[in-house]
């Protein structure tokens, strides 16, 4: 079907990065090239150590008592699960801070933002790319222009502003969003870059599909829900991943906007944990536990992750 092979996120090559054929021709393996080939492989392996060893060290150390971590530092044992291996550091983390609560907060904040972000941003992009209206071009222009503004420039004024906003919740109207879940979620749902990614993708799906559906009596919302969104898997995956990573890793904003311990996400939690703790083994255990979910998702959906990052290359 033409729609499924529509150029994903602007350019077709992005969809195949994970297993793309090399642009450079392969070199012969004899003579001088053989040595060069071998050196090339050694270089690649050395780089693997550079990028992989620190993480391996983190995971291995999380299972060792502090004394042994320091003893092993001077030798290869630093990267090997030798000596007295136990999960003591892990139980230690749970004993000192409400880690399960931090974890749940991060999961809630991330999942809600990802799901609502996909809905809100795709609807906006659909209105701009497929329905169209007078002034739509200007709206898109404003959205694209905001892409150069880094969040860090807005963080402090936004903090002040969040403290003034009213909120209608189950307990009636309250003023000030600081120290809540919503202050960690709602400002991050609408995202100019997500709208842009959806816009590009929707724009590449043949418009004739809309016409055919119209003839069959479908309204615009029906077209969005039953035709365009089901065809937009790659765009949805990209937006999900590009929302998930920064939300899970969020640090600056919750550091300022949330003071109550029960509302803290994991990344602020580890900072706080380090301040009341000098056990490196426990810090490594905490770090391993908050990295593991992302690593597992990355290994499982490797191709989508890499393609999402590659497609963020159109930003700018």
């Amino acid at each position, binding site marked *: 079907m033409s729609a499924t092979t529509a150029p994903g996120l602007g350019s077709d090559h992005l969809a195949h990065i994970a297993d793309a054929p090399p642009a450079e021709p392969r070199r012969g393996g004899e003579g001088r090239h053989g040595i060069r080939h071998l050196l090339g492989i050694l270089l690649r392996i050395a780089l693997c150590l550079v990028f992989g060893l620190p993480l391996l060290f983190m995971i291995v150390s999380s299972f060792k008592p502090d004394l042994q971590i320091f003893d092993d530092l001077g030798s290869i044992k630093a990267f090997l699960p030798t000596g007295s291996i136990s999960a003591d550091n892990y139980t230690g983390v749970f004993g000192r801070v409400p880690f399960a609560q931090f974890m749940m907060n991060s999961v809630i904040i991330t999942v809600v933002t990802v799901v609502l972000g996909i809905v809100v941003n795709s609807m906006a992009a659909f209105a701009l790319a497929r329905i169209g209206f007078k002034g739509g071009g200007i709206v898109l222009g404003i959205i694209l222009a905001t892409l150069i503004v880094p969040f860090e420039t807005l963080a402090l004024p936004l903090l002040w502003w969040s403290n003034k906003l009213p909120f209608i919740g189950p307990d009636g109207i309250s003023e000030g969003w600081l120290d809540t879940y919503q202050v960690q979620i709602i400002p991050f749902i609408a995202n100019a870059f997500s709208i842009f990614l959806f816009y590009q993708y929707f724009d590449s799906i043949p418009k004739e599909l809309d016409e055919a559906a119209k003839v069959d009596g479908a309204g615009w919302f029906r077209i969005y829900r039953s035709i365009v969104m089901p065809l937009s898997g790659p765009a949805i995956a990209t937006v999900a991943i590009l929302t998930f990573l920064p939300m899970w890793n969020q*640090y600056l904003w919750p550091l300022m906007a949330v003071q109550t311990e029960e509302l803290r996400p994991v990344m602020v939690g580890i900072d706080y944990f380090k301040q009341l703790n000098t056990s490196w083994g426990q810090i490594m255990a905490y770090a391993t536990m908050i990295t593991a979910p992302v690593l597992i998702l990355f290994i499982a959906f490797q191709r989508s992750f890499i393609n999402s990052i590659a497609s963020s290359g159109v930003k700018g």
Partner: protein
Amino acid sequence: MTTITAAEHANAPVASTRKRKPIKGSRSSTTTALLMLAPAAVLLITFLLIPIGLTFGLAFTNARLISPRPAEFVGVDNFTRLFDDETFWASLRNTIIFAVVIVPVQSACALGLALLVNVKMRGVNFFRTVYFLPVVTSMVVVSMLWLFLYQPNGLINQALARFGIQGPDWLGDPKTALLAIILMSAWQAMGFHMVIWLSGLQTIPGELYEAAELDGADRWQQFRYVTWPGLRATRTFILITITISAFALFTQVNIMTQGGPLDSTSTLVLMAVRTGFQQQQTGYASAISLAFFVLVLAVTLVNRHFTRDKDVVR
């Protein structure tokens, strides 16, 4: 529009038998479009456009984060104070040094990685994955981990000692603290830019290399005359993104050094957070944010200008 006319041709018999509203521009279409746009529009206005406006507005007031009194207009007081503030100049200098060092180092190394994994070879996917691992590890975790690696008796210095090198107190010495943060940041983000270079490399048609080889071009010449020109768009993008994210340096510094020793690792964002959050001086913090924004804008405009010039020259 063209799509409508095409569809009208295609569906002409159907369209004539059914009463059909025009697709675009009708009142109900516009209503639906606005309704679908509304949630995003309200959120973007509230949490993006208004805060952008506030950055400019609050910079000229004495607004405090939590204060019973309304903010008062104070003219350019915040800016005169800023220009007299030694920490501001130290932060600006560190932020710029960080960007000036990390932009070429990180983009060049990332290009090297991309070239290494852009070959047909068994296990190349494994290498890509490993080089990319630090990217999916949060900067907070990476900072914690390297804080430990950088200890005076930590892993890095112990490894150096094996080669008879006495490693410095990386984060405790004002001379090496910023360098240590630069190295770690480059390590974390290199895989990200490797992937972006890689997607650029794969837009270069393989035939170009074959033709170059037939003409007797060696590897360096192939890189110089085929690869490098082919990466022009990617290059611009990578330069802008690395520069802007370098200017926003905060997490690593806040976790590893808190700006110290002796302001040697203080940055603009760190200073904004200190004044606006810890000292609750929103007005002053907005002035710092504005300075940061001007820096970002200047780099973007300069970069646009230069890349446009190149387009004309070619």
